[in-house]
């Protein structure tokens, strides 16, 4: 392609950065927070099917902000890389670093070689045997990769949310407390809350997409926290913030002993067999919502939909 006028490389890169940054900051924020048993993903996301958070591999999760079609294709590429590598080598040979590197290279190449950079920011999180081995990689639109401690906030008013988290985050928090801190930080800047002209005191369960990488689970650590499990975790918070921690913990590890057929346990007992697989549609939702709705087709069509702005 020929440029009609001369533009310095510096100017071109600056324009692209600004373009990408603007796109990303128009969306809503995602927070990825470490807690005592793993990594917690909290996204402000009113859609229950267009996910911003996903599973890449046994111990590795993915979170993204920006343009849906772009980060969705990156997520799929990450799943493919992980599965091909795990299949041709061994499951233990798939690491967050490998996937983060591939993302960095790809984003970097797109940023320098294409007219329009990807308007996305990603986080690849990996949960280890102990909290010291947890990794959070933040990847920006230009392919830079940063290994962050404690937490990562991306998209929307990321600075404000980060500031809020920096004040309230404590290493080794339990799940309920980490969720409480994270949701409060997101609520502080969300247009859906009363402080910013919305109708809620803080973000309700329907506006949130929450998932965990739980190191206590035997194989696949990734679980969505949805429906009843999520509401009870959030509810404990507003009703009795001072209530003792075990109550909230019990609510999330409780697996009904005889679930109705077709109801995968929400988080389940981490010691139990790995039954919740990818049937992430939650404990609280009837099974018909996923089967009959033709979600698969819908998903394919919506890749052109841009992020909620």
């Amino acid at each position, binding site marked *: 392609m020929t440029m009609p006028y001369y533009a310095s490389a510096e100017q071109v890169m600056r324009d692209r950065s600004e373009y990408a940054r603007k796109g990303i900051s128009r969306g809503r924020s995602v927070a990825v927070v470490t807690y005592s048993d793993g990594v917690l993903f909290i996204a402000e996301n009113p859609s229950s099917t267009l996910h911003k958070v996903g599973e890449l591999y046994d111990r590795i999760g993915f979170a993204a902000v920006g343009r849906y079609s772009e980060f969705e294709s990156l997520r799929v590429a990450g799943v493919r890389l992980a599965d091909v590598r795990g299949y041709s080598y061994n499951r233990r040979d798939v690491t967050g670093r490998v996937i983060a590197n591939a993302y960095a290279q790809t984003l970097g190449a797109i940023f320098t070689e294409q007219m329009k950079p990807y308007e996305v920011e990603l986080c690849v999180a990996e949960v280890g045997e102990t909290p010291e081995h947890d990794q959070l990689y933040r990847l920006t639109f230009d392919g830079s990769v940063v290994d962050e401690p404690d937490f990562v906030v991306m998209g929307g008013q990321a600075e404000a949310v980060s500031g809020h988290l920096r004040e309230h985050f404590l290493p080794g928090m339990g799940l309920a407390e980490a969720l409480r801190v994270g949701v409060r930080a997101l609520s502080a800047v969300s247009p859906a809350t009363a402080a910013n002209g919305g109708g809620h005191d803080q973000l309700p369960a329907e506006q949130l997409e929450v998932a965990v990488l739980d190191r206590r689970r035997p194989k696949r650590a990734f679980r969505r926290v949805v429906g009843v499990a999520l509401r009870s975790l959030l509810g404990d918070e507003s009703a009795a913030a001072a209530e003792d921690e075990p109550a909230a913990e019990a609510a999330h590890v409780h697996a009904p002993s005889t679930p109705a*057929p077709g109801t995968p346990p929400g988080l389940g007992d981490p010691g139990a067999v790995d039954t919740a697989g990818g049937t992430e549609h939650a404990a609280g939702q009837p099974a018909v919502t996923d089967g009959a709705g033709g979600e698969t087709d819908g998903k394919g069509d919506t890749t052109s939909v841009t992020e909620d702005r």
Partner: protein
Amino acid sequence: MTDQSAGRSGFPPAYLDRVGSSFTDFLGITAPDLLPGRRPLPAMPLGEVGPHATTIVAVTYGDGVLMGGDRRATMGNLISSRDIEKVYAADSWSVIGIAGAAGIAIEMVRLYQVELEHYEKIEGMTMSLDGKANRLAAMIRGNLGAAMQGLAVVPLFAGYDLDAAEGTSPGRVFSYDVTGGNYEENGYTAVGSGSLFAKSSLKKTWRPGLSADAATRTVVESLYDAADDDSATGGPDMVRKLYPIVYRVDAEGAVRLSDDQVSSVAATIVAERTAADGQG
């Protein structure tokens, strides 16, 4: 950028194409050499080049489905393994058992497990049970060339149908032939060299709507009967403490029964047969 792995320039273009959610299809594009059934075969029959896995049985019961397999692999007239495992959880809600050329079969199971998990991750939902059965049929069909050379693999597939209609049994069993034919079985079935005897046994012991414990007994007993009459099927090995592998799939997912559970069932059966004065 024809490099097939994530190299210096990140993901190869095929990784970023939104083409589908099948892992097998994706490997077919990016790394076909990793797929069983895509390799050149010598033009003559291979004969006994690798171990063969033998009898697998599956039965439905009131709340789900059970699958069991003996522990023997043979090579010609030799026992090549006493403790091979031939029944696996395919995903959280289904199990797969294999008879035939063990090397190819185990590779196929591994591929199949990744196939189901890959779909689950990309689509965000589990494949339907019929979809899973069809994917497996396609994989067997791809192996037809090798099967003609003597490396046949015949699986048995069973799962818990999350979309089962009210009043029907949620446990379902599917059997296959070497050409990829896929048949849903009513109640129970078996594959492998001892399947004739195992099925005869199940014909007399299996009834619709059994409890989990009673159905477990029919599975272990049918494997005992198969081992009794088929030299390639291993019976419960009290000396080495090797017992059949039995998986149960019910509303709580696929679970492998512990050795203690299976051994106590096997011990009961052996005791009853012993008590029959050598006529058991």
